């Protein structure tokens, strides 16, 4: 929990600090005055993932005196492709612990507050109170709306960044005269429109670029120099390698920061975003399933089963069960390639897209069709561990 200031004197810089920050000190835009502001600053990072990694590294390196880190996750192998705070030996460690170790090693002169918790409506206001600037590096809509509302209620700036595949959005919300997240997007997308594995993924360097821009904006807010990204939405497309800027306006009818506010305390954000449980409930029911073991024994018996792979071609290249590839999106126009008189087993990575495929094919009149339960991931776990998981 964030509490005390660093024990050393925050009104000046030690000889070591002067040497460490010399490239800031010799630059008039920062100088001794700016460096002392950085030393006295308290910044809370929500999330220590793809965005949090460059944020933590650059804010710590720059000498931000107190950095709070909020996360509850554990480092996973698939994080290492972009979460450059962590190394291979950190896999399995709590992110908070690994991040705190890394940042303390980078800069022992600052205070790191590891806060291992899931941010919630119950703890957000209390946590945010101890910091001057909140930086949103989360990965889901409920937390984004929670961070926004808590910042507006407390009058704290919210340095916002979000990413999707190879595109990013960056701005600063929460300034009294500036817009908030709800001014930009009054409501989140319904959970039914969550992307499948086929549409997921992120270019590893993208959160590095977006998080670094958030870090730059945070440092500028602290030292009070330059033109902050308030009232401007910066869009970045890594494929086109283009930046664009759009004007953001404060919405006078905004329920949180407008003139007639209806949201005056934190609410249930999972409910606001239409999510009931931990995971969005599957909309698909009564899908005939076959387990990987059952499929294996039937194939071993020599049964005539047709394996339909509904993933994308780039996923087929990672691993496959020698099935016939028709991506889910192409199924409606390629359905004639399938023989409804044969027994068909559809699969994808985890079983969700193939459940949709089975449902579609049932409606199209297919009767002898099953969904491979748990997809190729379950096949790797239960039948053939040489099949790589992704």
């Amino acid at each position, binding site marked *: 929990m964030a509490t005390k200031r660093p024990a050393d004197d925050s009104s000046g810089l030690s000889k070591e600090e002067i040497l460490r920050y010399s490239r800031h000190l010799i630059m008039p835009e920062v100088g001794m005055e700016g460096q002392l502001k950085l030393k006295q600053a308290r910044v809370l990072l929500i*999330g220590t*993932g*793809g*965005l*949090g990694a460059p944020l933590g590294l650059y804010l710590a390196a720059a000498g931000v005196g107190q950095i709070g880190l909020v996360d509850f996750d554990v480092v996973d192998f698939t*994080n290492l492709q*972009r979460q450059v705070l962590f190394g291979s030996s950190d896999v399995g460690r709590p992110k908070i612990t690994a991040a705190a170790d890394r940042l303390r090693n980078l800069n022992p002169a600052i205070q790191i507050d590891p806060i291992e918790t899931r941010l919630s409506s119950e703890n957000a206001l209390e946590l945010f109170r101890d910091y001057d600037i909140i930086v949103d*590096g*989360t*990965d*889901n*809509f409920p937390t*984004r709306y929670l961070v926004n509302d808590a910042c507006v209620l407390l009058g704290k700036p919210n340095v916002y960044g*979000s*990413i*999707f*595949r*190879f*595109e990013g*959005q960056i701005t600063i919300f929460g300034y009294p005269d500036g817009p908030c997240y709800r001014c*930009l*997007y*009054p*409501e*989140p*997308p319904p959970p039914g*429109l*969550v*992307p499948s594995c086929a*549409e*997921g*993924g*992120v270019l590893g360097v993208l*959160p590095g670029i977006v998080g670094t821009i958030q870090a730059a904006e945070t440092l500028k807010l602290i030292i009070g120099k330059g033109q902050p990204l308030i009232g401007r*939405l910066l*869009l970045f*497309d890594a494929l*086109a390698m283009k930046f*664009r*800027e*759009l*004007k*953001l*306006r404060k*919405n006078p009818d905004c329920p949180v920061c407008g003139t007639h506010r209806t949201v005056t305390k934190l609410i249930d954000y999972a409910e606001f975003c239409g999510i009931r449980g931990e995971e969005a409930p599957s909309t698909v029911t009564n899908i005939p399933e076959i387990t990987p073991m059952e499929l294996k024994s039937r194939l071993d018996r020599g049964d005539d089963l047709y394996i339909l792979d509904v993933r994308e071609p780039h996923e087929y290249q990672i691993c496959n069960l020698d099935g016939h590839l028709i991506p889910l*999106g192409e199924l409606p126009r390629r359905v004639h390639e399938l023989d409804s008189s044969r027994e068909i087993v559809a699969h994808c990575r985890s079983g969700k897209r193939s459940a949709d495929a089975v449902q579609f094919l049932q409606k199209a009149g297919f009767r002898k069709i099953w969904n491979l339960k748990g997809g190729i991931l379950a096949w790797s776990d239960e039948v053939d561990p040489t099949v790589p998981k992704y």
Partner: protein
Amino acid sequence: MAVKVIIPTPLRAYAGKQESVEVQATTVAEALSAVTTKFAELKKHLFADDGRLRSFVNVYVNDEDIRYLQKDQTSVKAGDTISIVPSIAGGALGLAF
């Protein structure tokens, strides 16, 4: 009037994987209608059942939000750029639509 409509990453799958589409239009409504006529799948992602633009999708003419202009009746002229900007939440695995 030829205007350019920029398709955001999460919607490109429904727009022939194109980054932008050139259409003939004099208002934003005409431009979006031309785009969704060309790519029918885009329609349900841009508009709710009542025909209104979804609240997690914003539309800009050049750098101005149409909510603060004349909404979908905002006029466009040759060379204007219309941007469709949906809400994205990703920090790790993107969440969009």
